[in-house]
């Protein structure tokens, strides 16, 4: 009797997944699930971490119009937080990641509270300055182990029984985290709260005159972005089993801007594409040590001058699909 229900359920699911506005996500998720069977999963895991980082960054720059030049703070400090929680306190991986995320959120409150006092170029310079300060503090603080970083962090067992030492299992775990983060960002943007954020981006004064306290909205958006960037950083530290100064440095803040720019500023799936491109570019250029920075600089210049809509923006234009 119940046999007709199963295909019915599948066809309903299929129709939902293949709806015009969902199609792109279905394809993306399917590709991400299949990908580790086709290529080496560790690089892909890094791509996912950076993609979540870039999506979190894009929430701020693309939807509130605030260009942060200090997002490495949240990636790096969350990495230190989760690595310390595992290596020193012996927390299980899931709690360590939550702890790292919380650390980033706390930094987000402080940095955001200071930085939203100015707009535009000044906002960028302030976040850069605060990031540099935190970089120096991380270099001096005893628990970060200075130039060495926190090394040899055990991956451990997820929820006590899933062994994360297997790279494929780890990839799937990170994919779940990425999708949760991605879904949260989607929810934020497509909520009334997100509509106010977009209004602030378009015209802050008018939004104020409509009765919204824009500073509150900006601060909440900043903290959300910081926490999600922290989620990416905490996960990254677990995957690679170390946390170092590289993730707190200004070059990392530049890198996340580059990822978002290549993919498409303010495009929802843009940062994901951008992160994969940048990580692949880096691993390709790894043998030509100094050229990574030069290549990044060239891509910056080209994107800003001639390709401001980004890869996803261009695709969206060609396919006439909102991506």
């Amino acid at each position, binding site marked *: 009797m119940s046999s007709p229900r199963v295909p019915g359920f599948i066809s309903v699911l299929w129709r939902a997944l293949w709806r015009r506005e969902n199609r792109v996500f279905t394809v993306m998720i399917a590709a991400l699930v299949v990908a580790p069977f086709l290529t080496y999963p560790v690089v892909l895991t890094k791509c996912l971490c950076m993609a979540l980082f870039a999506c979190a960054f894009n929430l701020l720059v693309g939807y509130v119009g605030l260009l942060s030049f200090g997002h490495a703070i949240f990636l790096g400090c969350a990495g230190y937080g989760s690595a310390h929680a595992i290596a020193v306190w012996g927390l299980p991986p899931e709690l360590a990641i939550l702890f790292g995320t919380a650390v980033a959120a706390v930094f987000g409150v402080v940095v955001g509270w200071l930085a939203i006092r100015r707009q535009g170029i000044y906002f960028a310079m302030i976040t850069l300055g605060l990031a540099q300060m935190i970089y120096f503090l991380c270099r001096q603080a005893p628990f970060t182990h200075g130039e060495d970083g926190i090394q040899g962090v055990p991956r451990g067992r997820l929820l006590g029984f899933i062994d994360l030492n297997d790279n494929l299992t780890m990839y799937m775990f990170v994919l779940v985290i990425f999708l949760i983060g991605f879904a949260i960002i989607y929810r934020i943007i497509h909520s009334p709260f997100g509509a106010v954020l977009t209004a602030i981006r378009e015209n802050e004064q008018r939004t104020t005159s409509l009765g919204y306290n824009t500073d509150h909205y900006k601060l909440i958006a900043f903290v959300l972005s910081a926490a999600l960037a922290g989620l990416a950083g905490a996960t990254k530290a677990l995957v690679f089993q170390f946390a170092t100064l590289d993730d707190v440095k200004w070059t990392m803040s530049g890198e996340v801007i580059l990822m978002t720019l290549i993919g498409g500023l303010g495009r929802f799936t843009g940062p994901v594409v951008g992160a994969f491109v940048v990580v692949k570019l880096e691993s390709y250029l790894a043998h030509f040590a100094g050229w990574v920075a030069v290549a990044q600089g060239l891509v910056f210049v080209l994107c800003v*001058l001639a390709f401001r809509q980004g890869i996803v923006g261009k695709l969206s234009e060609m396919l006439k699909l909102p991506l």
Partner: protein
Amino acid sequence: MSSLLSQLVVGLINGSFYALLSLGLAIIFGLLNVINFAHGALYMLGAFVAWGLLHYAGIGYWPALVISPIVVGLLGIVLERTLLQRLYRLDPLYNLLLTFGLALIIQGLFQIEFGSSGEAYEIPQPLKDYSLELGFMTLPAYRAWAMISSLVVYLATWYVTERTKLGSYLRAATENPGLVQAFGVNVPRMVTVTYGLGVALAAFAGVLDAPNVQVSPAMGADRIIVVFAVVVIGGMGSIMGAIVTGWGLGVVEGISKVVYPAASDTVVFALMALVLLVRPAGLFGKAP
């Protein structure tokens, strides 16, 4: 006490470099509304041009002090004409990103060629053998020269912008470029020249700094971030503001080296945070 006084003098010298760099940034920002992220890289380039002139052509410090700013200034003019100019109609953040990209390229190329260790640049004659006895410290004559010559440059810049015809055009174009253009002034050319001058100031600072520090590809990156904090603290409203803030922060940094050395890297940024709390527009800035 004597160590405090000597750190104060060292702070003043460091501060004169902060002031020179933020002065160039402020001039460019005034007319172009662009924060020149490549400023640090061009400062580094200025130092390397001086080093290269000596190393490859045997041209010494004194000619280099003139040649290097001209070379870098011309490069700046080319960059402005070919790249920056295309983005003036857009959000100024795009030009920030463009100049960031340029900084990565310039710094990266030098990193490939010279590595990160750096090259030494000799203190030039006749300053090398002299030093001033101040009682609490011996001040090498070169450091005194660096401070005095940057002071001369500030005064010259102030004079040009506040007391000459060209300066009055510049100030007018900062307020309202369209109107100035309507009066028959070639504003785009003025913008180009201003960028060239601002960048030349960065190169001048680079040559001036070359004998003080190792000439290395990374010398600009760290310094420019501090200078950004200086600019946030001072506001980019006035030339005097840039100079006073630059010197003031150099001194504060110097004092913290004596009082609490661990904080000497971070004190400028902590002050930036404090100023944002008390006076978000910056000490000399107009209300946003």
